[in-house]
């Protein structure tokens, strides 16, 4: 038997590790890695709540996780295409170099 609190705290730690990386990282690819961590923490929560609170016929959380994984894959493909494009024009993907996109 695993307490539900353990699973939720586990995903909360993962979420805040992602937020910490999102704020402190300078490379855009590393920021994207942090976003993956945050999305994954949300996925764990969907699956845990579905398994514990809606056991039986209701499988909405399961499908939310499934679609979230598909959308994450699509999102990272687009983001990496954008970063390769940035690298072609600026030769660097650090966020300090992206000042032209600010305005």
């Amino acid at each position, binding site marked *: *038997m695993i307490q539900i609190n353990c699973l939720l705290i586990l995903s909360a730690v*993962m979420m805040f590790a992602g937020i910490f990386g999102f704020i402190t990282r*300078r490379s855009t690819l590393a920021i994207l890695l942090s976003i993956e961590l945050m999305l994954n923490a949300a996925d764990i929560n969907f699956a845990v709540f579905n398994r514990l609170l809606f056991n039986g016929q209701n499988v909405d959380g399961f499908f939310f996780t499934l679609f979230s*994984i598909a959308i994450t894959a699509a999102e990272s493909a687009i983001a990496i295409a954008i970063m390769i494009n940035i690298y072609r024009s600026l030769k660097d*993907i650090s966020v300090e170099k992206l000042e032209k996109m600010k305005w």
Partner: protein
Amino acid sequence: MDSFNIMFFILAALILFSSIACVVTKSILRAATYLFFALLGTAGLYFLMGYTFLGAVQLMVYAGGVVVLYVFAILLTRGRKDQLSKNSKSKIFSTLLLCLVGLAIFVLGIMKYQFQAEALSAPNEGVLKLSEVGSKMLSTGDGGYLLPFEAVSVLLLACIVAALVIARKR
């Protein structure tokens, strides 16, 4: 303390260690590797909950697709010197404080709330059958997911086209 608990603690330690190491390590390739282990741990957690299909999807999409894509992108876009996280001490400290306070609030909320179901038991055979997943995925009735399924397929098509258009040589 049965094998179910022991497995959970191993997976939890793996996830905690690798997700924190992913955001503090110096090398970006190491960060991608730690992310990979965090995702593997999550897949193990899904297997532990009895959602074997979800675990398999997580392994295939993340390990087979996303992480490989990241590693290729990292190797393609090497800067002259990797400045992964060059911040002032005060910024790192204030971010750490922000994250710890947020985490404390989350943990407090989770501990205070009375959940309907308190504990997760080891899954028996029929938590969720694969045939049930398939029929729900393609049904239009109550609890059916045909419309999101089709929307995701259109999204993936748009994603392929957009990635090709954005990353092409001009």
